[in-house]
Structure formats: structure tokens, C-alpha cells
């Protein structure tokens, strides 16, 4: 049993490696993962006096949010349309491991982009707690990659998958405390924000950047992201079973 799980995990890693090789440099991936977050950030920040300790974690979070999700809006629908997904389905590997492999590819892309943005922003905003900030990036990237899979699971083509996923992400950016503090939002939106993984990601990164860590709150942020990831992956597997088979 344990041996079978290890084999499944190994094969999930091979799928992640393949996805990175095939999709990392695809045009839509670079546009939605690399350019959109910085465009959103600049359009909100330029001309306003924004505290870098508040703004930079927001930028890093949305880089992870868009980056980790962008590859999912391409890889999964494209593979289902072209038939390459059937190669995975007919291999001796569980559907969960296939989904996990795809989530890992998005995780790496999101994490790489976030780390790149962090390094670029260090001159503007010092980073007092580097390990916790990077821990926040890792948890966020995996959660957002899983979220991206969930959003693309019903679709079989990139033009179908990309617009709804992008719209959902942009809406979430404005209600999850990236640019506007949650306390400034109406109560209903605050409740909605706490049902979204981006809120916990932004909060964990902001804590790590501010240097004043509330351990309990930080752990809640990470724990919430783990629960979100499990939920997103489970629903993705269910949706793929329903729509593929």
C-alpha cells in the first residue's frame, strides 16, 4: 500500500516536470502569470501613497495567485482537447496523483514568480522574516494552483477556461485585502473575503513582512490554505471524473 502511494507520488512528480517543460513558456501563461499581476499592482499604486509593507505582500500574493493559476487554465483544458490527457488516464496512476502532479507544476510557477517579485521589491520594502515569508509563498502557491485546477476542470479549451478564471481572480483581488484593508470593506464582503484563500495568503505574507508575527494567526493562515488545497483538489478530482468519464 505504502509502496503504491510512493509510486503514485513519483509519477505525480513526473507529470509536474513534464508540465513545466511544456507550459512554462507558453504565451498566455506569461501574459496572465507575469504581466497581469504587475499591471494590476501598478494601476493601483502609482500616484498614491501606499505603504510598501502593505503593498508588497499584496503584489507577491497576486503574483502567486495569477502565476500558479495561469498554467492550469492552459494545461488541463488543452490536454483534454488534444487527447494527451488520455495518455495520463490510461497510465497506471490514480486520478488524484494526476491532479496532484498538475497542481505541483502550477505551484512551482507561482512560487518562482513570487520569489522573483520579492527579490525585485526588497530595495523598496525590507524583509525582516525571510523564512516565514517564503513559507507563506509556498503555501499560497500550492493553494492557488489547486484553485486554478478547480476553475479549469469543467472546460476543454483554453478560450473557454481563461476568461472566467481571470474574471474570478480579478474580483477576488479586490475583496481579499490585496489593495484595500479588509476593515474598510462592507461586512458582507468581509465575510466573503474570509471564505477565500487569497485573504489568508495576503495576511500571512503581510505578517511576515511586517516582522510582528502573531503565531496563532499565522498558523491559522497556513492551516486555512491547507484545508482550501485539499478541498480544491478533491472537488477537481470529482469534477474530472464527472466530465471526463
Amino acid at each position, binding site marked *: 500500500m505504502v509502496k*503504491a502511494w510512493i*509510486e503514485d507520488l*513519483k*509519477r505525480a512528480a*513526473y*507529470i509536474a516536470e*513534464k508540465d513545466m*517543460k*511544456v507550459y512554462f513558456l507558453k504565451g498566455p501563461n506569461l501574459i496572465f502569470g507575469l504581466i497581469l499581476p504587475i499591471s494590476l499592482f501598478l494601476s493601483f499604486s502609482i500616484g498614491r501613497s501606499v505603504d510598501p509593507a502593505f503593498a508588497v505582500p499584496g503584489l507577491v500574493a497576486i503574483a502567486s495567485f495569477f502565476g500558479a493559476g495561469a498554467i492550469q487554465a492552459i494545461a488541463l483544458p488543452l490536454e483534454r482537447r*488534444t*487527447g*494527451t490527457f*488520455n*495518455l*495520463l*488516464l*490510461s*497510465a*497506471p*496512476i*490514480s486520478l488524484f496523483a494526476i491532479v496532484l502532479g498538475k497542481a505541483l507544476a502550477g505551484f512551482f510557477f507561482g512560487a518562482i514568480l513570487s520569489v522573483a517579485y520579492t527579490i525585485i521589491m526588497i530595495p523598496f520594502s525590507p524583509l525582516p522574516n525571510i523564512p516565514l515569508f517564503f513559507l507563506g509563498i509556498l503555501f499560497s502557491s500550492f493553494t492557488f494552483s489547486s484553485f486554478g485546477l478547480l476553475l479549469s476542470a469543467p472546460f476543454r479549451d483554453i478560450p473557454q477556461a481563461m476568461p472566467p478564471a481571470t474574471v474570478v481572480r480579478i474580483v477576488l483581488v479586490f475583496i481579499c485585502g490585496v489593495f484595500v484593508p479588509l476593515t474598510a470593506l462592507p461586512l458582507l464582503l468581509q465575510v466573503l473575503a474570509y471564505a477565500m484563500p487569497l485573504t489568508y495568503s495576503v495576511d500571512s505574507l503581510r505578517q511576515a513582512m511586517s516582522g510582528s508575527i502573531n503565531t496563532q494567526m499565522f498558523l491559522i493562515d497556513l492551516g486555512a490554505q491547507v484545508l482550501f488545497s485539499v478541498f480544491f483538489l478533491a472537488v477537481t478530482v470529482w469534477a474530472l*471524473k464527472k466530465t*471526463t*468519464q
Partner: protein
Amino acid sequence: MEIAIRVQDLTKRYPNVLAVDHINFEVHKGEFFGFLGPNGAGKTTTINILTGVAKATSGAASIMGYDLSREPVKAKEHIGVVPDTSNLYDEMTAWDNIVFCAKLHGVSKEKRENRSNELLELVGLHERRNDRVGTYSKGMKKRLMIAAALVHEPEILFLDEPTTGLDVQGAREVRGLIRELNRKGTTVFLTTHYLEEADLCCQRIAIIAKGKIITEDTPEKLKLSIQAEQVIEVSFDRTMDVADKLKRLSNVTNVVTLGDKFRLSVADSSETLASIFDFAKVHSLKVVSINTLKPTLEDAFVKLTGLRLEVMSIEKEQMKPNRG
């Protein structure tokens, strides 16, 4: 004989169509089994269920004794799949594709490279191994798909319309490769709508139409099963007045003249053959050629399915708007 594939009461229902309707069959280990039928008959749906790509609505299927619904991973360890359209990554090289397939099937690192080299040599693509698959022709992709499907040395090879869209030479090469694999012990499950291909390659055939298996037997027995009367074709050095005289022979029920040949419908071909030689001697005729004609698989298909032969030449592209 050991059973490689067992299908019991297998059914697949889509919202608007019953694609596979309670089918049953078994494929023995080492056998070359053909699944013959027109496009849209349920062949690809059946192969998709047997390879884990689709789930059956009801019924059961097992691969090497492993039930596909209960132990899908175990079952899939024993199979290699060559689908009707490319399942390889156009963005990757042939080498990367085949190595990725090896990894997915748990082939050890030491074996992976040797096996990939061997197979690329076998399918004649070793020289082009570092080219992206997107630059390959249809035939090259098909050969690479076969190599990728064999990388883990599967006991059963599923091939869905492997020669569709290939030129005559390409189709011949692919058929030769598959036959060679079967000769070496691989169980082959081949779906095709080419009757000649099924006749040339398969040891046993199941004919499927509208989701149901119409019949299942060896190609020769299928042909014999529709042989109500036997036919002898004969030509002599002269044709004048011969047809009328042939009609008077015992056992001959009808004579049709086709150019310089006479096609005789007879009750018993062995008895009539002797009578024809006597007939030639009596009338001072020289027999130029004489053949007993057997029904073809095409004849059997038409008779058994009640379908017109043209349905077999309708390609998948034409079927798409009507498919569920």
C-alpha cells in the same frame, strides 16, 4: 487458455446515445483480436473503457484478471494504448515523449534509456529523436505512439484504428510491426473499420454495429458461415455455346458469363470440379483456369450486419456532427 481481456455485459450510455449495449467477449493471451465495425459503432468507446479513459455505465471488464473498476491501476500496468488520434505532446521531442511514458509506467532509470533507444530504432525514428513531435507527419506520429505504448513491455496492446489516415506504405509498415509484436507474444486488441486489415491480421474477430456485438469468430469461419452455395469460376480456350452446355451439368444451379470466364453456382464444388474436366474432354475444350471462389469478409460483413459496405468507408471526421 488464459484470458487476457474479459468483458461482461458492458454498457456505456451517454445522455443521448447508447454507445455500447451489453456486450460480452473474451480475448485470450497471445491472441490477435479484431474489433470490427463502422465508425460510430462503439469501438472507441469500448477501447476507452478497457484502457481506463472512460467508465462503463454498467457491466464489468477485467485485464489480466484485474477488475477495471476495482483495481484500475493494477489493470493498467499490463496495457499499452495506441489511440486513434495522437496522445503525445507536440511541444516535446520524440525522446522526451517516450521517456515520459516510460516514467509514467514505472520503468527503471537504467532500463528507460535502452528501451527508448531500441524502440525508436524499431519504428525508424531514432535519427529524428530530438525533433519536436509537432514537426512529425501523421505516419511518424503513429509509429512513435506505438513505440511509446510499448516502452514498458505491456502484455496487451490496444490499437484504435492504427492505420487510418496513413498512406499504403505507412499502413503496411504499421501492420507488419503489429503482427511481429503479436508473433513475439503480445496480445493485440485491434479496432478497425478496414475489413481487409482485419482479415489479414486477426485470429478472431468480433463485429460490432450500433453498440451490439453481431457475431464473433475467426475470419475464415465468418466467411464460411454465410456460404449458402459454392461458386466455381472456370475459363476455356473457347467460349462459344459453352454456357448453355455447362448449365446441363449435374449439381450446377446457375451459370453467369463474365468476359471469358463462367461463374458456376454449384451444390458441391468437389463433385462438380471432376464433372468440369470430363465436360472439357468430351467437348474438346482446354481448361485455361479454374478456381473455387469463397465469400470474402466483406460479403460476410454485409450479410451478417445487414449494413451496406459503404458505411465502412465513412471516416470519423464525417461522423463527428452526429456523435454524442
